[in-house]
């Protein structure tokens, strides 16, 4: 599962921030994941728990909050806006899997529902980011 690699990125970032901020313990990590990553919350949480074991003292009793941001698009050609959840059922398994690995391949498999253009902006719900890290000094 490549969720592990992303969970590893989150925990590596938390360790870096803890070092920079002189935290002896990280108490809370808030992670936001774009819906377009099509990542299972359960699998990602399992991966996070595995990676956390690398630094048990720093992350003892840490609370990891995971939020999924809905993905939405805006057509650069006609200005139409639409949501990923409205079109994802039309994707076949391979197309869904491609977007799961590399979300930007949405441009290969999705078109603007209004004008059929592949030239659209992923307006929200892409990528993964660490929203906040709390800890004790």
């Amino acid at each position, binding site marked *: 599962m490549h969720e592990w690699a992303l969970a590893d990125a989150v925990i590596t970032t938390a360790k870096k921030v803890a070092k920079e901020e002189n935290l002896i313990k990280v108490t809370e990590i808030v992670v936001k994941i774009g819906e377009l990553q099509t990542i299972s919350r359960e699998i990602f949480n399992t991966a996070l728990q595995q990676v956390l074991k690398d630094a048990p003292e720093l992350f003892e009793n840490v609370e990891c909050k995971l939020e999924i941001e809905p993905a939405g698009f805006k057509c*650069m050609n006609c200005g139409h806006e639409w949501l990923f959840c409205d079109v994802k059922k039309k994707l076949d398994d391979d197309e869904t899997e491609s977007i799961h*690995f590399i979300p930007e*391949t949405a*441009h290969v498999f999705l078109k603007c529902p209004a004008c059929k253009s592949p030239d659209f902006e992923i307006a929200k719900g892409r990528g993964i*980011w660490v929203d906040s890290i709390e800890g004790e000094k």
Partner: protein
Amino acid sequence: MDPRINVVEKRLEKVGRIIAVAGGKGGIGKSTVASLLALVLADSNQKVGLLDLDFTGASTHIILGIDNFHFPEEDEGIIPPKLHGISYITIANFTQDHATPLRGQDITNAILELLAITRWDELDYLIIDMPPGINDTTLDIIRLINNIEFCVVTTPSKITTGVVKKSVELLEELDVPILGVIENMTYPTIHYAKETFPKCYLGTIPFDETYEEAIGDTEKLLETTIAKTLRNFTVICDKMC
């Protein structure tokens, strides 16, 4: 903050030298040099990876004769499949070789995603096939990969030389190491690269009529003048092998 940036170095920690094959213009042979360099190094028992970052014009799979696209194996990330002795990642694995119309920010995100989730095994060299010009990919690679080196391809053309010169000047300004400039598809009477890039000129690759026929067949590719020239580049060999 984007956590993916913080694991790029970790994902590449087992890789020796990382060489971006770049050039100012399209059609000058960057993908050919990148693919054949990887092939020649693999044939010399070096551990080699090839990463095709020319998302909108990916072609290394055509050169290497790969037309069967599978998702890479997953194990705490994605594991580059080994093809012709080369650990290989291309966007074509994920697009099933369809057109990939990406704008700048999408290119940056796709590069970052690939670098963050790909687990390169121990490699002597990772060769990166770059898109033409100075663009998002060039700037991202310089930003994200600390030990990147550039191998710049040009052709015996005033147009190409003029554009490539600007790329080389920018790399020099940014203090990015340049392995050298290779003049591809040369013929005996013109030597723009030698005159224009005296400090980093590596040599020439003559125009090879057999290349087109060899595309897709790695054994034939290794017999081309291009492959033999790359193998015999003494400066490259001194620096690389």
